[in-house]
């Protein structure tokens, strides 16, 4: 192999590296980050029939579907009014009432919304806004905090799970602005969607951490025979290409020195 071929191989390697670097840069992906509170201000629920009932009967008698259909449940102030009204009517432990609202109503609501299977940044952003509203309401209302923070956490956990699943299904999503924005909003609320690493990610991570023993150990174990042959050939050609290039440079230098 002469120096021209070695140099040509180096150029190919360089071009591949640059195209990979360009690929991993952030892709433009517009997302509407403004939020219009379109939830109903009032649910018009009549709860007087709950008077003197026990908390066990809430599950069967509370008009859950009417509350869900009114979308007033996304209004923390209206929900708090309904919760306090229920607490005033029902005979029983207040913690069981809070638990009923969080589990039986919100988990059912969240499950209903989760029928949106595809990655939808606007839908997830809406859930984040609802969660933040509940969290903020709880920070200003000590009595309501115990269940509003649970509702907020429920929404954030769901969004976090959806982001993880979406990223697993489409690896290129991590480069999109909308995805990174949603992840950042979750992180601000102590929810960190785990990013599953690809084999190349793990390779780069181990290489950049100078963990060469681990790198070689993993490469030997996880690559097929064909992949091992390709790696060895790649290293061999790169080394030969570098040697040829250095040889060429030294020849030029010597030639220039002789001419002088």
């Amino acid at each position, binding site marked *: 192999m002469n120096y021209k071929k070695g140099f040509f191989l180096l150029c190919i390697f360089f071009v591949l590296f640059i195209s990979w670097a360009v690929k991993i840069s952030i892709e433009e992906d517009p997302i509407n980050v403004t939020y219009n509170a379109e939830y109903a201000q009032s649910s018009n629920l009549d709860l007087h029939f709950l008077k003197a009932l026990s908390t066990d009967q809430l599950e069967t008698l509370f008009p859950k579907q009417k509350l869900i259909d009114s979308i007033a449940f996304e209004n923390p102030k209206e929900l708090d009014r309904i919760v306090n009204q229920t607490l005033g009517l029902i005979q029983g432990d207040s913690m069981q009432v809070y638990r009923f609202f969080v*589990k039986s109503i919100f*988990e059912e609501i969240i499950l209903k919304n989760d029928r949106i299977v595809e990655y939808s940044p606007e839908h997830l952003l809406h859930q984040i806004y609802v969660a933040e509203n509940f969290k903020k309401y709880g920070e200003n209302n000590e009595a309501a905090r115990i269940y509003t923070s649970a509702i907020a956490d*429920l929404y954030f956990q769901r969004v*976090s799970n959806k982001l993880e699943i979406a990223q697993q299904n489409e690896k290129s999503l991590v480069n999109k602005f909308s995805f990174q924005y949603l992840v950042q909003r979750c992180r601000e609320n102590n929810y960190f969607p*785990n990013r599953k690493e690809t084999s190349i990610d793990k390779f780069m991570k181990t290489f*950049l951490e100078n963990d060469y023993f681990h790198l070689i150990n993993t490469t030997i174990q996880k690559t097929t025979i064909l992949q091992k042959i390709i790696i060895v050939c790649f290293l061999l050609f790169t080394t030969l290409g570098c040697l040829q290039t250095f040889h060429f440079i030294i020849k030029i230098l010597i030639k220039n020195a002789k001419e002088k």
Partner: protein
Amino acid sequence: MPKKNKIISLLVAFQLTLPLLLSGQFDQKLVKFDFREIDGNPYGIIKLYMKNERIKVKYFASKDESGIPIMERFNEWAFNKKLVLVSSGTYYYYPNKNNRNKNTVLPVGICIDNGKVINKSTETNLGGLAMVYPSGKITVENLKDKSITIRQKNGNSANLNLADPFDKNLFFKWAEDVRATVFQTHLFAYKNQLLIGQNSNSYKDYRRFLAVCTTSNGELVHYIINLPFNSTILDGSSKAIDYLRQIEHVKDIAFIINLDTGAQNTLFSYHPKSGTPLPNPNFSGTKTMKDAINLIAYYYE
């Protein structure tokens, strides 16, 4: 000086220095180092006897809210402590794959550091929930059991299901109240049951486990089992259990959790008298402390 006074002075000086000479770093009856070669494989074992609660646990889960890295936090805390051993803890990841700065890493799964909530996201693949109390005790619960036991400030126990959003919120509130440190990790064995199936990951690597057992005498002993040879998680944890049963003859295995040996393969064991790190590779890791993202430390008090 008269001869009699000289003798008295020497005796007094000897009496004053003798306790200092004998005290050392920690009580050697409470920490034992053992090395075995079983089927050609090296096993480095550190046994920590927890009776009288002289040996305690501290966990550093993450850099703190002002961004002070783990090593600095650890050095500040360890300044006047009698260290027994320090090891890397659980898994971490880079949230931005284009930024491999170690200051950006995050712990995987639920993470609370001294009552401060770091990460509320539950990692479904890590079934072990470890809780380190300010008193220096560590307990591990199996998240898949759907009921974890917590110890409240008044000493009462409570059962919570972290799959329930309401209970999960109570759990975070409890952790803030008692200033607990909580992290998720791989749980390999729980209440005498091996939890790893045949279809587990076949990747081989060096392994390190923390096993908490009760001996036949009813003593609580923590074992750091260091396996500096390539094994799968099933193979490694099976070997650890076999060692505990057949060689240590433990009565019960409360839990066995994983201690990360990948890029943060940090393990320092300290000499009982001088307090200097032991150089023996069976009781030490391959990385320095500054490579660790989180740390579990055993100390004597």
